[in-house]
């Protein structure tokens, strides 16, 4: 009798565990199948204001708007899009394995990446830059960063670029995400945050940081944002056509204004499809 109670107790624990896991897998399936019919899966960033951000109200940003427009031209309505987080390190793998149909996630076209995946676009020309405190006048050229505390994201090309070429002596701190650097920048624990100016502008424009940060305007590199698709996919031409239409009918201008306007980001004019500035 005693034994039975103990077994019942452990059975209850097991049942609890089972139901907990069952719930979660059920949820996932719901996400996948709601709406019914065909679906398109798009990879975006989840934590970059102005480009791709997950908010309590849904997804927002320039990449998101471009992806929505492209999906519409491909014949998918907004609720037929399934958004997935495409972290910088995962993007090529996600495309190669077919986890996503296309990726619009601050995805710079580079020769190394083109060996693994195909790119449509570019749809935006950005530059590597640094974000500094609004009252900081000591950083006037990239070389000034040598004596400064610099923050970037683990494994990012921006960090390597600074370390190898622009300011080899900079005191570099790496975090998994850009947002982790912002608090430190505000509190003077670091002096500059480096990545593409389009991303930096998004952070600078956030309500809480208004007027606290500014872009240095160094234009250290050219970053041609493209839409990544699987190698050899016929989506590339269709997306290129959609992007051309987006520029032609003024939607591109509208999306850029809506997303970068508040950031006061001096964006470059819409690039020509296939024209990659190195």
């Amino acid at each position, binding site marked *: 009798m005693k034994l039975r109670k103990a077994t019942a107790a452990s059975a209850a624990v097991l049942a609890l565990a089972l139901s907990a*896991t069952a719930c979660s897998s059920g949820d996932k399936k719901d996400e996948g199948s709601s709406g019914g019919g065909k679906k398109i899966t798009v990879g975006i960033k989840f*934590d970059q204001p102005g480009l791709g951000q*997950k908010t309590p109200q849904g997804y927002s940003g320039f990449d998101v708007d471009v992806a929505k427009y492209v999906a519409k031209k491909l014949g998918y309505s907004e609720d037929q899009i399934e958004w997935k987080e495409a972290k910088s390190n995962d993007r090529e793998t*996600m495309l190669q394995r077919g*986890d996503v149909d296309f990726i619009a996630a601050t995805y710079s076209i580079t020769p190394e990446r083109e060996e693994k995946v195909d790119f449509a676009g570019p749809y935006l020309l950005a530059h590597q830059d640094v974000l500094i405190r609004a009252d900081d006048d000591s950083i006037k050229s990239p070389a000034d960063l040598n004596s400064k505390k610099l923050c970037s994201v683990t494994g990012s090309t921006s960090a390597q670029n600074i370390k190898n070429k622009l300011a080899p002596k900079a005191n570099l701190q790496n975090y998994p*995400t850009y947002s982790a650097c*912002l*608090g430190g920048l505000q509190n003077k624990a670091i002096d500059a945050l480096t990545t593409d100016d389009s991303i930096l502008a998004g952070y600078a424009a956030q309500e809480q940081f208004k007027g606290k940060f500014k872009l240095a305007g160094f234009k250290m590199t050219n970053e041609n944002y493209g839409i990544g698709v699987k190698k050899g996919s016929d989506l590339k031409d269709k997306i290129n056509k959609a992007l051309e239409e987006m520029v032609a009918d003024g939607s591109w201008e509208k999306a850029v204004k809506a997303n970068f306007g508040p950031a006061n980001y001096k964006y470059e004019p819409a690039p020509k499809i296939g024209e990659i500035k190195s």
Partner: protein
Amino acid sequence: MSSVLYDAQGPRAKRRNVLYTVVFLLAVVALGWWVFRALNDKGQLDWEKWKPFFGSEAWTTYILPGLQNTLTAAFLSVLIALPLGAVLGIARLSDHVWIRVPAGVIVEFFRAIPVLILMIFGLALFAQYTDVNSDDRPLYAVVTGLVLYNASVLAEVLRAGILALPKGQTEAAQAIGLRKTQIMTSILLPQAVTAMLPAIVSQLVVIVKDTALGGAVLTFPDLLAAVSPMSSYYGANTIASFTVVALIFVLVNFALTSFASWLERRLRTRRKSTGTVLPPAAVGGTDSTGTAA
């Protein structure tokens, strides 16, 4: 025991203790004041930064999905690790050298390696050799690491539980003519498992804590990983986000710890006869002490 260490306090000792209390209190208050001032200077105590946690939005968008992933990973791990640990533990007690030794090697090997190393390995393994969806890969990797490690720990807990049973149990079973398998399954295991329950529950604390590794290093969207998008959306409220997340971890684990010691007390008082209940901090406990990352 503690009261044995010092005498009943006379007037002088009492005065001295009051002095110590005041000095210690001043030190704690000074530290607290410094932290408060520093936080206040940086605007980390602004209502703006804390407000999101008093509405439902932050919870439903960031925290609860993260917590659910944390608990999913923890429960899946313990579900798989339990039977695996039982098999390893019994195998290690086997009479056959060719079963006992490999089981022993497996158990000792996985207890000697950091869980994070196992998780990093698991993530790359699933990416290169299986076609697990990229969304699920971090979960698989976290669970793999936790299972390999905790199965080994639970194997040792079970082995200790079986070894702690009075020898008379085995001897009596042998006397009535039970075979080895029968002795194990119908006499030893049921008693050992009951005795192990508190230790298993407290091992769950270790597992819950270790899932945070997945969030920090493997992009597993757990409770800890919720801090980054959350503080990015709410304007770098790092301190507030961390405090809330740490508090949730403490509450969940405190509930588990209390459940474990309640279970232990209950089992101990109920089973006076054989009287083998492993306290939460027995075999698994001392080991888990730190493993806990």
